[in-house]
């Protein structure tokens, strides 16, 4: 039971970080930006870079790798936003074209990374998975502790952003783009800022995932599923709503996987995404009525 609770907390922490990054872009632009998956992969590649070119994880190398993953993740999201998605917005491209464009960018990055990694899952074993500490009767491994601490730091940063003037502008742009522009908000700049921060967060999330579970070029797309679910279920940019959504998703998933077996985990993830999209529509419909 205690292992189950620890697993729920750490999985919830992971989903929370992914959900925070995705929800920033989702609530500011109202689009499903799949390039976030590429930011995640690029961040994870920083682990590969540190191990290959910087002779392993010394403290200085780790700090350098985190900064590189944040910068690369941010650039990975902000550059396509500036040069591709903004162009599509001006062209009044429909939502499907935008979604396909973001997927095409993700696909290019993923396959380029696969060529770089020679299609291997690379595990460096940077962190031991043995039991590290016990808190309130729960046994946490190093990996779980790192994930929870990272999620706590992320939520503080995320909350600070949404409460800042930049966050207020992002909310205005997300709520009504035209009105935000009329009242003098530089909407394009705001969306670029949001993309940069969300990409950086996703990049560091990728780095943490890569350092703890191994680097795999295809890890970006599966990471998007819980991120989308958390953002949709939370329905608004509020920290409490996102935390509740992430922990609930992790709890349901952990219990289901413990009951029916690990091999059904991905099946469950797809089912939850489809159900979340359908339930969200039903909720909106009932609100309209």
């Amino acid at each position: 039971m205690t292992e189950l609770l620890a697993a729920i907390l750490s999985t919830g922490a992971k989903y929370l970080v992914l959900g925070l990054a995705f929800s920033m872009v989702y609530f500011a632009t109202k689009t499903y930006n799949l390039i976030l998956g590429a930011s995640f992969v690029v961040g994870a590649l920083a682990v590969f870079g540190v191990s290959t070119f910087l002779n392993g994880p010394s403290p200085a190398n780790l700090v350098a790798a985190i900064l590189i993953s944040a910068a690369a993740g941010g650039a990975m999201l902000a550059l396509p936003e500036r040069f591709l998605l903004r162009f599509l917005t001006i062209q009044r491209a429909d939502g499907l074209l935008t979604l396909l464009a973001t997927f095409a960018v993700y696909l290019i990055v993923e396959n380029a990374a696969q060529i770089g990694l020679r299609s291997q899952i690379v595990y460096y074993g940077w962190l031991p998975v043995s039991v590290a500490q016990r808190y309130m009767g729960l046994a946490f491994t190093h990996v779980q502790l790192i994930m929870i601490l990272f999620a706590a730091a992320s939520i503080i940063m995320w909350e600070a952003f949404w409460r800042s003037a930049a966050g207020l502008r992002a909310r205005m742009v997300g709520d009504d783009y035209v009105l935000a522009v009329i009242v003098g908000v530089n909407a394009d700049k705001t969306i670029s800022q949001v993309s940069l921060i969300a990409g950086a967060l996703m990049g560091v999330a990728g780095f943490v995932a890569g350092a703890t579970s191994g680097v795999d070029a295809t890890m970006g797309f599966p990471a998007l599923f819980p991120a989308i679910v958390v953002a949709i279920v939370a329905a608004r940019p509020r920290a409490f709503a996102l935390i509740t959504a992430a922990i609930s998703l992790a709890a349901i998933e952990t219990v289901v996987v413990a009951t029916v077996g690990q091999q059904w985990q991905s099946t469950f993830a797809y089912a939850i995404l489809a159900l979340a999209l359908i339930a969200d529509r039903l909720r909106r419909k009932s609100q309209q009525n």
Partner: protein
Amino acid sequence: MEYVLFVAILLAITASIAGSLNLSMGLGGIPLLGHFAFPLVGAYVIALSSARLGLPSLLGLCLAPWVGALAAILFLWPCSNLNPERVALATIAIALLMQSVLDNWTQVTNGPYGIDNVPSLAFGGSPLTNNAIAAFTYALLTILGLNRIRHSQFGRLLTAHRDNPLLLAFWGRRSSVLVSRAVLLSAAWAAIGGALYATFIGYVSPNSYTFNSLLLVVVMVFLGGRGTLWGPALGATVVTLLFEMMRFLGLPSSISAQIQLILCGIILLALVVVRPHGILGRRLQS
């Protein structure tokens, strides 16, 4: 000669599957990105019925569209009620769910190892000739069927739904009925393609049709022109020939699949930016 015929059969099957996606996505404007589940279902129907149960392949081929349409029922509610991006995501999720079930239900589907020794269609000739006849007939029927649908009342209403759903509602037409018919028809037709592919290759696994294969089909539809009659066939020809030519470049086999997908991504990006209506399509008024 056999190589050319092999490529031509694959091209005919892929172009027809692209044609079935064109019916829902091109004519109807329904972003059915979970479409790759239908060829997979069709392939499994014929593999299970003929390789496992020992039924004639032709019977499996006849069953495939019905089971494909049955599987499409899962997609109907999202397609009729969600906005385009959500339809795309929800249908991808449902299709991946179905693929994941095929992957894990090892007692029936043999899991990731798939089902081999799927018998070829038997008309009396050699297996290659039989497959060629079946694939070319399928491609011809796709073109004729799409042409008929485009000029029918159903096709015109479907196009109206794509271009202006509000106007359609104003006329008193129910979009959900049109969308459902288009999705079911598209699914049934794609399932036949999957079944033909399985009998041609003789093997099916959950990875026979993946999300990446769908992307290839989407590129074909977009390249040729969404909603056009010959667009998917043209797109399929260009993409297939491009990929076949890449075989002669001497790329290492370990990275050729990745290079193909990168190329797909670049083509899709270029299309979205430069020519979203494709080669044969006309620009739609926004």
